[in-house]
């Protein structure tokens, strides 16, 4: 990525003036100094990537907004990962995926999770039961205590949203 002279200077000023404050802001929300440091750096990387540092009027709210987003993102990933690994823990040893496969799985879960964001719980549940567990309309209808025609509506809606929110 190429940075012109003025925006490089702006990012530098931004970093020099605010990185200590930002570290403190993140540390109050994240109980791990190593990860807090990483998140602080990611925040500045985001500023550089966006390439409009020169337009910033209020640096601290700006940085806090980005850092807050990254924190929420990280937290959601952790919720997904913990729940997945917890559920795997009850599997017999020979069915356990390798650590590498698990990392890939968590990435996929994260993408699917954000693609399904905003769908009602029943719609999301119907979609996942069909897609992940291969249940039929009738089985899903029974699980969710709704009619088979509702299941069909749910699936159409979720298929539309999920499949076209995800990049191929």
């Amino acid at each position, binding site marked *: 990525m190429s940075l012109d002279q003025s925006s490089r200077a702006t990012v530098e000023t931004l970093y020099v003036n605010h990185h200590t404050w930002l570290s403190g802001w993140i540390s109050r929300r994240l109980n791990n100094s190593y990860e807090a440091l990483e998140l602080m750096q990611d925040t500045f990387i*985001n500023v550089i990537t*966006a390439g*409009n540092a020169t337009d910033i*009027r*209020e640096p601290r*709210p*700006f940085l806090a*907004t*980005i850092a807050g*987003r*990254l924190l929420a*993102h990280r937290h959601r990933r952790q*919720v*997904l*990962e*913990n*729940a*997945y*690994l*917890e*559920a*795997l*823990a*009850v*599997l*017999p040893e020979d*069915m356990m*995926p390798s*650590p*590498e*496969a698990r*990392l*890939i*799985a968590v990435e*996929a*879960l994260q*993408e*699917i*999770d954000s693609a*399904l964001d905003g769908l009602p*719980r029943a719609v*999301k549940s119907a979609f*996942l039961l*069909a*897609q*992940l*567990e291969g249940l*039929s*309309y009738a089985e899903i209808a029974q699980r969710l205590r709704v009619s088979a025609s509702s299941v069909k509506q749910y*699936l*159409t809606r979720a*298929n*539309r949203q*999920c*499949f*076209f*929110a*995800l*990049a*191929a």
Partner: protein
Amino acid sequence: MSVVLKNAQMVGEAPIQAGLVISEAAADQAAEWLTLFMSGATTDDDRTRWQQWRTAHPDNERAWQHIEAVTARFKGLQGGAAYRSLMSTDKAKLDDRRKTLILLLGLGLTGAAGVAGSHSQSWHQLTADLSTGVGEQREWILQDGTRLMLNTASAVNVQFDERRRVVRLIAGEVRIVTAHGKKAAGRPFVVRTVEGTVRALGTVFTVRQQNGRTEVAVQESAVEIAPARSLHAVRVLMAGQHTSFSESEIAGSTETTEESVAWLQGRIIANEVRLKDFLAELGRYRRGVVRCDPAVADLRFSGVFPLDDVDDILALLPNSLPVRIRPRSRYWIMVEADPERI
């Protein structure tokens, strides 16, 4: 401030490419076709019409290709685990769970008899799922006053009605301190595992689900063990005793060791234990894989360690044994012979 918002939206979101090149109509139709295939009841006729739809317009074909590409994303996932994971981010789910817990506690305040009348159906089936993640330990107080503590990577279902109190151990290890008050009166308290049941006789005890066996240790009073497939094998286990049972038999009992209950104090105790066994035990508290080099598997050692940082415990091992720790990834750690010391 508009800059702030614009930037905030860009963070952490993948660019959407496909939405730009596929028409809305084709996307809608592709989703409908997929829905039809999900019904599990497609006919040859459906498939012919689907083929026709695909060739009718390049957009249709692209939309379908997109669906196939995205479906691949689901393939590497363990279905049941992925389902639980994805549903866990649902806010409603978290709220539901909280409600169930409050319900459990609330039921206790009213007393079992008081609620059995008008809402009987829902109260009968009152069910709560409690669980802990890897490295986590937590304690709950149930509606009757019983204290239930879960060790690392454990899960139970709590099923209380006005006749019995059943805790179904799904995975891991649980410690029960039963209550004796009015709310407990006349309702037997049972921990159920795959292999059978452990009935509390006014007690403090721990139950651990192992591979094909259930381990029980009694700290106070006594429990009655009943394997699922043998009516004759019922036995009472007294305080200070430890045993394990399968579906059909109960092993001889031994004295409860300090090691087996150390987790209740957040510690792990090694008492002249083989390195391999110690690492297997330690692995319960740590996410990922800890492998032991066979060359050092049988080395024995002793020590008491706090469980709050398992990686610290691993890092300390070379102080007492001729081993070295080799991390292969964040998740995978190898404990192997240190060639300079063996």
